[in-house]
């Protein structure tokens, strides 16, 4: 019994090609049925995300299965084999197992250590299982891969620290307020970055307020979309005593918020922590506004530095993660050998 994987990802193929060879989720059952009709291996599974398209198989004759799978992919996506064959990777036995463990753990992702892939691997597995395309080997392999992904997260720091600016800001807010649900967030400005952050905060069930002076219609639209309250710029200062997180991202050429103003707000807020995120360039909040106790101020460069440091920190965990993945691969291969003996 041999295991194989063939596919392409963000490392081996450009976006245009990945787009053409991607199999939408709703078409996965159909694709798996085609594989079954062509007797492509005994067990089969399709994993297709925005960054990768991979076919996993387990059966007695991997070479023939791999050739058939390439042809099917070409026909199904209407792309000539010659156009994508050089971008494909084909891995067998330990290499295929190790690859899946790395994929599921986010080690092979564009953003190392991201967690979305765990859900995508799980969904692909459940889909194939539901369609009756998996058997003893792939069931065991995919269940093990999810366990490995979980173990890596608990035993190393591969998932520690966010790597996007919006997530870093949300994480910092979490370090101050803990659970963000119900935390009151005010956003000054309706730029792209502010909107991104607003969405990140919305996902954490915060109470949102959007402030704008020139584009009040946009504040209203954003408010309607995210359930935020639109506030006119002239009235935002009055509301500050109720705000926990202030995000500024206006195009104002001068500083809008000064230290004295923050001190006054802190007094009105009875010294409750205030987290200020200044995404604007030039800055909207005076640097010394972070001086009062319990006032925390981060600008765009601070957030970027943390995001870069987190990414570096994750990369530093790769060696340890690879060691754990190799060990788990060995354990899985031992099981396979024990179960299928000479056939493996």
């Amino acid at each position: 019994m041999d295991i194989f994987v063939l596919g392409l990802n963000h490392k081996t193929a450009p976006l245009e090609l990945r787009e053409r060879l991607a199999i939408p989720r709703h078409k996965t059952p159909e694709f798996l049925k085609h594989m079954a009709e062509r007797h492509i291996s005994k067990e089969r599974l399709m994993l297709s995300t925005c960054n990768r398209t991979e076919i996993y198989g387990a059966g007695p004759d991997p070479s023939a299965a791999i050739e058939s799978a390439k042809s099917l992919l070409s026909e199904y996506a209407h792309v000539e084999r010659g156009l994508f064959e050089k971008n494909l990777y084909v891995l067998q036995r330990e290499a295929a197992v190790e690859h899946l463990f790395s994929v599921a753990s986010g080690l092979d992702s564009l953003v190392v250590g991201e967690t979305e892939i765990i859900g995508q691997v799980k969904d692909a597995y459940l889909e194939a299982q539901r369609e009756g395309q998996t058997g003893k080997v792939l069931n065991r392999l995919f269940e093990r891969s999810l366990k490995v992904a979980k173990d890596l997260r608990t035993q190393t720091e591969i998932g520690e620290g966010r790597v996007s600016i919006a997530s870093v800001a949300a994480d910092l807010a979490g370090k101050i307020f803990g659970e963000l649900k119900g935390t009151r967030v005010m956003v000054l400005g309706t730029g792209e970055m502010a909107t991104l952050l607003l969405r990140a905060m919305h996902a954490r069930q915060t109470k949102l307020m959007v402030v704008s002076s020139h584009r009040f219609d946009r504040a209203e639209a954003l408010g309607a979309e995210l359930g935020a309250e639109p506030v006119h710029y002239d009235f935002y200062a009055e509301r500050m005593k109720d705000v926990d997180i202030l995000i500024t991202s206006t195009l104002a050429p001068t500083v809008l918020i000064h230290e004295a103003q923050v001190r006054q707000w802190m007094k009105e807020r009875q010294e409750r922590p205030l987290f200020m995120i200044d995404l604007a360039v030039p800055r909207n909040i005076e640097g010394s506004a972070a001086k009062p106790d319990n006032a925390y101020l981060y600008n765009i460069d601070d957030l970027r530095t943390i995001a870069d440091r987190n990414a570096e920190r994750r990369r530093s965990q790769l060696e340890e993660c690879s060691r754990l993945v190799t060990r788990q691969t060995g354990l899985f291969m031992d099981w396979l050998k024990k179960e299928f003996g000479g056939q493996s």
Partner: protein
Amino acid sequence: MNESYYFFFVLMGYFTGFVFYFLNFETSNRTGRAFAAKITWTILVLHLCFFLLHYLRTGEMAVHTLAEYFYILSFIILLVSFYIESRFDARFLMLFSLPVVMILCLLALLLTGRERAGLLSLDSWWLKLHTGLMLAGFAGLITAVSAALMYLIQSRQLKSKHIGNASFKLPPLETLDRVHFRALVWGVILFSLGILCGFFSARDRQELMEVLKDPKVDLSFAACAAYWVILGLRLSSLRRGQKIAGGTVLVFILLFAILAGVYFTPQGFHKGY
């Protein structure tokens, strides 16, 4: 002599637990925390066994000497810390409580068998209450100090914008503030009631004037008053955060100095106890 060995063994056990907590705090290995907790729990059970054995042997609680006092205090602190750590998800509270516990165990070890003059007979209910409440109050205050130290580290990291290992691992400021505040409230109330019971006990023995002349009593009273001021400021929301946490730590240093002075200065009503 047997007690010395026991105290030494427990001290070493807590030290081992502390080392594992610290390594886990400083390195990327996350499984170490569970291991450190297991070690500390095991030693805590052994710690409890000491009291049970003492009770079975003598029919009395082990709070007759300063060594035993420190020993039971360290036990309560750890128990409270464990509870708070799991109840409020205040990760690594144990890392900050264990050093205090180790100091108390070390003092217990050094004082064992050297303080017959410090023997306390718990012959009145007021004195029993005084001892129990003081122990519980100290445990609350030490837990508050641990949470305050964690708060200061976390807020310093967030202010400096250099988010390090400590910030990743320590709980959010909100959690630490809540733990600090609650532990402080309980600590101050129990400590104050403890002092009050001490006064009643002294009055019953007609030794009130002598007690009031004891500098340690006066200083403890001052420390307690300082804690009430801190608590008042926090309750009135005039101050919170770093200043309140710093205040808790500073007053505790004073309190700890008083506690140590009780044994090492040869005067006053509480001499040797």
